[in-house]
């Protein structure tokens, strides 16, 4: 079964008197356990597409199905819960809650889950383990402003993975990282992909990390070209 299905998805942005057609009828089918990379030039619509899949943005046309359900008619509450339980999102630039420490930021989505049945200790353990894996053992109790851009990105990655979501969306996850850390992160993602059958979709400019992908979606001017 396809985890994600896009059918003739369009996204128009009104811009003054004109309209920007950021996405122009994209079809896409992604199976459980896929590790897909979205590539394309700047402004081609990668972020827009990921936002639509991630239930952060609404498509202005077409259908978006997650686990077979059309989410375009979902209420705000249902979309929010979907983001909490099913999707992990790593954003291109914006990321952490300023008043929470590294550890607390990673714990945050788990604390929002009322029905998770996780004890405080389990939550903590899970967050700590992930932070160790992204190499932030020493930054657990620092606040975001005390971290570098790359460190912040790694916290965001740990937070996206902590809920063990079925789908992880990453918008240029390695853009702010040095190649070593980038590699490490991708290895971690690949591991999760293999072990937990987590579906990954990430956009990138970096041809180096394309090798991890088992599928590449190329877009240009809001259209899928392959």
């Amino acid at each position: 079964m396809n985890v994600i299905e896009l059918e003739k998805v369009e996204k128009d942005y009104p811009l003054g008197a004109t309209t920007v057609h950021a996405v122009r009828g994209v079809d896409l089918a992604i199976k459980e356990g896929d590790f897909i990379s979205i590539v394309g030039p700047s402004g081609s619509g990668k972020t827009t597409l990921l936002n639509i899949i991630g239930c952060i943005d609404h498509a202005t046309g077409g259908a978006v199905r997650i686990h077979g359900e059309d989410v375009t008619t979902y209420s705000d509450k249902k979309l929010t819960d979907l983001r909490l339980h099913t999707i992990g999102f790593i954003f291109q630039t914006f990321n952490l809650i300023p008043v929470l420490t590294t550890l607390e930021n990673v714990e945050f989505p788990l604390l929002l889950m009322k029905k998770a049945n996780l004890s405080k200790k389990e939550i903590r353990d899970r967050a700590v383990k992930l932070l160790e894996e992204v190499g932030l053992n020493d930054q657990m109790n620092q606040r975001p402003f005390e971290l570098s851009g790359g460190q912040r990105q790694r916290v965001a990655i740990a937070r996206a993975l902590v809920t063990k979501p079925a789908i992880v969306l990453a918008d240029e996850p390695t853009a702010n990282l040095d190649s070593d850390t980038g590699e490490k992160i991708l290895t971690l993602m690949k591991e999760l992909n293999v072990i937990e059958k987590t579906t990954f979709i990430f956009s990138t400019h970096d041809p180096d990390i394309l090798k991890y992908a088992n599928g590449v979606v190329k877009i240009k001017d809001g259209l899928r070209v392959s």
Partner: protein
Amino acid sequence: MLIFKIAWRNILRHKGKSFIIGGILFLGAFLMVLGNATSNGMNRGIEENMVKSFTGHILLISDKEEDKKFLFPMLPKPMKIIQDYDRIQTILKQQDYIKDFLPMTRGGLAILGEAQMSFLMTYGCNFDDFQRVFGSPYEAVEGDLLKNGDKGILINSNGRKKQHVFQGFWLVPEGRDVVEANLSDEAKKEYPDLAIRRELNVGAFGESNASDDTVPVRAIVKFKSLNGLMEDISIIDIETYRKLFGYFTAEDIAEEVPVAQQKLLAAGEDDLFGSGDIFATGATTSVAELEKTIKTKTVIKRVINYDDAAFNYISLVLNPGESIDGAMAKIENLIEAEGLQLQAVSWRTASGQIADLSDVASGIINVFVFLLFIVAIIIIANTLSMTAMERTEEFGMMRAVGARKGFIAKMFLSETFFLSFIFGGIGLFAGVIVTWIIRPIGIGAGGIDFIELVFGGETFRPMLGFAGLVNGIINLLFVTIFAVIYPLLVARKITPLDAINRQ
């Protein structure tokens, strides 16, 4: 817990904004408590001073009396006479909530001078009884205070100055000389050629059978508080009052003892009391006949009971702790049950504009507090809206990783209510402390009548009861709730996309 933690850290993080909002909440709560304590203190002051020194808590008047604001009227209409005082007295004495009571008369006097006519309110009473009921609300500046049976009038020290301006003469008590130190500025200019009077030629105001008479001035008095307010008030012995106003006097009754006359008196009384204000009109033949009969009788026994004969109103002083409203209800039931021809009026109603004036003062304070509210709400709402918009990224991020609108709302509310509890709470507390400090010290009116009026007495003592404090807390809650509504809507509406678009 998570929400509280985040809320608390956010308060600390946005110290500047927290401080602005907190500062306003502090100031608002502080001023609100002070305002409350002030208006409460003023009301309490005027109540204490008026009730304790002159009006009593509740006043009983004839049920036929139309004007309930009878005590300090602009134009004194003759009052109806209270029927059957003897019986009323017996009944009132049995009421455990009534501490004491005093029957009195009230009327207007025209001072008949050479130049022009001026005006004075006069209240007739038995002096000893007045002292018993009200303590000594006034002191003699010149002359001596009177006792039961003494005849004459007591003039207010401010009233004397006023009459000097109107009439051109300076009043001094019988058998006394001018006290230079007490002269008004105007009078000083005329001294030593100042015209002196020791008695007043007065006419009872508005009574067709009233007579002119000369009344000796026995003392110049000064009320211990609110003297300025009482300037037109003069106290007169009850018998002189009755004579002036053509009432049936106690002496008249005392002269009439023989059993043979009882019948006539009784018949006359029936007639008199039946028509209500017949004493005031006095034109009825029965009165004339009666008086003639009485006057021609030989005196057999002359025991004067001043509680006999006519009164206009009865001042009731309640026992400590009795509420006026509660006592009013009891009195009204009593009047009903006993079939008394009376109606009960609270001191506030009876005092008319004087009590209204204190309402104006507290009204102004209330308006001020209300404006303070509005301003506080506007500033806080503004600052909070700005905060909400500035925190688009933070809120949008939380929403993106799965926080519902309700979570954002709760967090935002928690922050605002934390600030409200802390700063507002400190403000309330500070208000209580300041009230608490000022109350025993008091703020003097400096002898200025107007300020004394506003203060409700010589010294202003703010007062904050439990109700005032609860009121303050409720008001603070209202301000917080009203101020947070709009910013809350702003915060709830923020989406992850808004946050992304920000960048």
